């Protein structure tokens, strides 16, 4: 089994059916996890912020930092492995928040809202998600089977 780690503001795609792609410590950040069961290709992005307009220069260096520049890149990377949009299974996790009654630190919620808009515009449907709350999450996808797990507060669930 090969383990591929997705750092914050990073994106990984693999066509190795033995590979597991993992990302740690998703707080307000979001992981979008794609799987093509036909081609046995898996991909994951761990983006940090909703919109690249806050730091256009950073978006050039690290497009995976932002939902609006990173998520399209993840889909393109899947297509370059021969994946078809119609067969992609899409799962989403992360987007947590602190106890914040003024909501100014609610990057998690903003990350999720922007993602939903991008998906809505492009006719993408989320198959399963585990978002929000005060959880920090670790997400994994087994590239061969498409099995996705989310670990938080000492428990692991399948998504």
């Amino acid at each position, binding site marked *: 089994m090969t383990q591929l780690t997705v750092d914050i503001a990073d994106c990984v795609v693999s066509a190795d059916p033995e590979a597991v792609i993992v990302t740690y*410590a998703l707080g307000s950040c979001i992981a979008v996890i794609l799987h093509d069961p036909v081609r046995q290709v898996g991909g994951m992005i761990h983006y940090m912020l909703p919109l690249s307009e806050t730091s256009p220069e950073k978006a050039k260096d690290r497009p995976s930092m932002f939902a609006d520049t990173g998520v399209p890149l993840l889909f393109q990377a899947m297509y370059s492995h021969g994946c078809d949009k119609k067969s992609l299974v899409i799962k989403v996790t992360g987007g947590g928040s602190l106890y914040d009654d003024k909501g*100014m630190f609610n990057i998690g919620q903003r990350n999720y809202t922007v993602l939903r808009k991008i998906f809505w515009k492009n006719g993408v449907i989320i198959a399963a998600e585990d978002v929000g709350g005060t959880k920090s999450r670790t997400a994994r996808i087994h590239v061969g089977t498409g099995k996705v797990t989310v670990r938080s507060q000492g428990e692991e669930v399948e998504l």
Partner: protein
Amino acid sequence: MIGTDEIFAKVQTLPTLPTSVARLAALINDPRAGTLDFESVIRPDPALTANLLRLANSAYFGLSREVVSVRQAVALMGLKRVFEMATSAAFARVIPPFLPGYGIAAGDFWTHCIAVGILSERLARDLGRDVPGLLFTAGLLHDVGKLAIGSFLVDEALPMHAHLADGRISFVAAERAVLGTDHAEVGLAAAERWALPPAIGVAARWHHAPLDAPTPEGRVAAALVHAADCLAHMLGFGTDVGEMRREVDRRVVEMFDLRPARLERVAGDTLAEISEMARLMIAPQESRP
């Protein structure tokens, strides 16, 4: 189970810091101290010298030219900055491999410390404020109380986890419920035990309730550290058993008129620097949860 008095008694028996850090802390409080005094502390310690120079050449602290000696670092950056780098380099060596009560490995704990140091300063600049003295170090060492508590916490880890599993309770509230105190109070005691400069103890003590700090300067510094701490927890820098159960102090939001766009810009602009400094100062880790 350990009592509150016992915790504070144990703080007084914490191992002393490496001589070099203790001497640096004394120097920064001494207005007569100069470059030669710093050199005489740092140079005999080859590991500290090497780490200091790596930091001096990092993207965050770095200048346009390469820094090759302690003397040059002091000449180019000033004593305070070199003290901040030397303290970072020295503290990195005293962190135990794992903090039992907090369920966090040294590497992740230290990444959190580095993130808060960098984010505190960046936020101050982004707000157009003067950066309070030793703010980087105050941010870096804001959780020094966890280091102290973690060194003698074993049995208390489980009840703390149980409290956290039980509804909407913040991590600090769980600490108070189980220990009768929290890492902020213990942090001040530890900073005093280690004779760290007062600015560091104040930020450690008040980073969860900055507006209660006794002086105006202390309030500003603790508030910057509080906001940076919240950001670091959100972004997943050094997640521990408390996960995201942290209270954002609304008084800090009002004090700085914090808005999402500013916080997002500060977060995005510092990611590369935080990652680089963590790489420079942390040995590769074997396992994570």
